[in-house]
């Protein structure tokens, strides 16, 4: 008797759970689903945890804002941890097969995203990227991978433009007289960005005098790299580094007295808030090419300015600290999905989401990072603008292009360490 009741209790609970999850995912096909489950897959433990946490936080705020505005189906986030490619594949498979999730926001790390996109494509689920730059992610003819953020090939031209239009004149040189040195981590991210810088430099006639790559996970000493740079006589130093290696490099650059006239990072390590926190005034003058952080308000649409303020406020309230650039990128990307795409698709049907995304035509300045949205058929956003920022008094502010500029670039040429 007792046992029977117990079993029927379980049965009831199961039925209720099924009913809830059934209405939760809403199977999305019809117009006007009540709510939509969205998988959020970022590495929140392991070596990429720092940026993965920021991405998760940014995505959460985007869902909060959209849910409170009641513009479309309620967004329910299902968060998973994907510290490496293997767990990425497993977790995303589980999201799709067991949780019936059809839309996944993630993963920021290029190699993990590459692995996850295979799973998403095979299962006809959407992978909505926020920060991974690997060009192949959208370059393989996949239908269900969409990337609002810039890919690696967009970094080189922006970076080289800045060197020829701003740095060279300030140094009193012609563009083709500026000697450029490249130091980059030898993973997908470093290599792809470095390749695009080299191609752009070649087009602009800027000579590359040093081309040095290293493994970010096994390099504990940068002094031989710094000595090579000293020998190269470079004027401008282009860096593509993650956090720990960027900090080690800059620390040792100071110790060994590496003096160049401009230092330009390209995302990751140099736009992390940790870089400013650790180095304080020693970070000042370091430039960074990436999506825009401290951007000129006038470059944003009026409603975007409001959304940006709301984002900053809520982020601080919920997580107790200011968002950094990567959180803002994740927010911008997820916001487009939650606010523009899912309501227009009327749910989470992947084919409709792709259709709705490709139909978007939003002007530059729509996103708090300055991006507009216009996807090409490969799934890459063609209006993902890249800006040049600079660390000034411990803050990352946009200095180029002029439209986005908050303030003028300073410290070009960079003073010698002995004179700082």
């Amino acid at each position, binding site marked *: 008797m007792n046992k029977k009741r117990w079993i029927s209790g379980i049965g009831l609970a199961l039925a209720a759970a099924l009913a809830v999850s059934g209405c939760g995912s809403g199977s999305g096909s019809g117009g006007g689903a009540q709510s939509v489950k969205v998988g959020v897959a970022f590495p929140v433990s392991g070596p990429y945890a720092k940026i993965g946490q920021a991405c998760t936080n940014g995505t959460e705020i985007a869902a909060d804002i959209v849910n409170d505005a009641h513009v479309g189906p309620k967004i329910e986030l299902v968060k998973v941890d994907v510290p490496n490619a293997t767990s990425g594949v497993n977790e995303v498979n589980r999201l799709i097969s067991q949780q019936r999730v059809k839309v996944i926001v993630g993963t920021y790390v290029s190699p993990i995203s590459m692995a996850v996109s295979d799973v998403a494509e095979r299962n006809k689920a959407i992978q909505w990227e926020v920060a991974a730059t690997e060009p192949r992610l959208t370059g393989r003819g996949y239908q269900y991978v969409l990337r609002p953020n810039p890919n690696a090939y967009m970094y080189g031209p922006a970076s080289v433009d800045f060197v020829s239009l701003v740095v060279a004149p300030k140094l009193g040189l012609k563009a083709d007289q500026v000697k450029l040195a490249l130091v980059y981590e030898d993973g997908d991210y470093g290599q792809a960005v470095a390749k695009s810088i080299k191609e752009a430099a070649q087009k602009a006639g800027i000579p590359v005098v040093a081309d040095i790559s290293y493994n970010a996970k096994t390099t504990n000493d940068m002094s031989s790299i710094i000595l090579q740079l000293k020998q190269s006589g470079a004027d401008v130093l282009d860096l593509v580094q993650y956090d720990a290696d960027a900090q080690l490099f800059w620390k040792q650059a100071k110790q060994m007295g590496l003096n160049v006239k401009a230092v330009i990072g390209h995302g990751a390590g140099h736009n992390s808030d940790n870089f400013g926190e*650790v180095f304080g005034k020693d970070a000042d003058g370091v430039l960074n090419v990436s999506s825009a952080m401290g951007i000129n308000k006038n470059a944003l649409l009026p409603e975007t300015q409001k959304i940006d303020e709301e984002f900053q406020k809520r982020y601080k309230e919920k997580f107790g600290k200011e968002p950094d650039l990567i959180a803002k990128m994740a927010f911008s990307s997820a916001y487009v999905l939650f606010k523009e795409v899912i309501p227009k698709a009327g749910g989470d049907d992947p084919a409709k989401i792709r259709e709705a995304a490709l139909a978007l035509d939003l002007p530059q300045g729509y996103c708090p990072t300055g991006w507009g949205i216009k996807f090409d058929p490969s799934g890459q956003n063609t209006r993902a603008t890249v800006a040049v920022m600079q660390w000034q008094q411990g803050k990352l502010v946009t200095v180029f292009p002029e439209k986005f500029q908050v303030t003028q670039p300073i410290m070009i040429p960079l003073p010698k360490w002995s004179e700082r």
Partner: protein
Amino acid sequence: MVLAQLIISGILIGGVYALVSLGLTLIFGVMRIVNFVHGDFLMLAMYLAFWAATLAGWSPYASLFVIAPLLALLGAGIYWGVLRLAVRKSHEASILATIGLSIIVQNVALMAWSADYRSLHTDFTGSVLEWGGLRISVPLLIAFLVALAVTALVFLFLHFTYAGKAIRAAASERYAAALMGVNPQRLFTLCFAIGSALVGVGGVLLAPIYSVYPTVGEQFLLVAFVVVVLGGLGSLQGAVVGGLVIGLVETLSSYFIAPSMKQLVYLLLFIAILVFKPSGLFGKRVEGVGVDE
């Protein structure tokens, strides 16, 4: 001039590797425990030094004397509470136990201190000795000198105290040592505590040099295993010489060949040395492994 600077840099980073490997050579070399939690103890010590400096304003060279004993206690506790039970079972059991501990320690650090990359950056951490165009980083130099001093101290301990002699006896002939009345488990707890204190010293001295984050230990663990095997299991001199060899090879090969090739070069050298001297540079052949009561 460049060559001289490269050699100096190589020796200094070699000192860092030696410092990280000293504790491991005791634990891995003497007790034959493949200790994956070693790197995470390094991380804990770095965090403790970081917080002591940031919150209380303690110089790492002062907090050293608090943090190393703390790590020793932690090491003893973990050995007595967890590993003692695992080493009785089998070699694999102790490997899995240390991997599990490593995951726990890393994630506790992640929850407690977040994944931020923190780093001490003061006038002192950036200070250098300049000498005819050569530059020597002061924190690295101190780490190197302490590595040498600690090696000498532990060497004296192992050769001139009863406990030290007992550790060496148990390392070379476990059963005979037990028959002579040496209590292996008590000895191994002591050994694990000393090994943990040594990595504590290493972590504190690395805090002014490297960024601290929950997985920083992984950055040093592989190279520490290489140094320990290269130098000879259980040999302190071996750990120092092995560290210097790896440091020099790494620095020179990344300048003259390519930075991304340096690991290839030192691992090739490692294989070559093991082919000609399988027990490592300073190692003696040891028969019989496995910890029993």
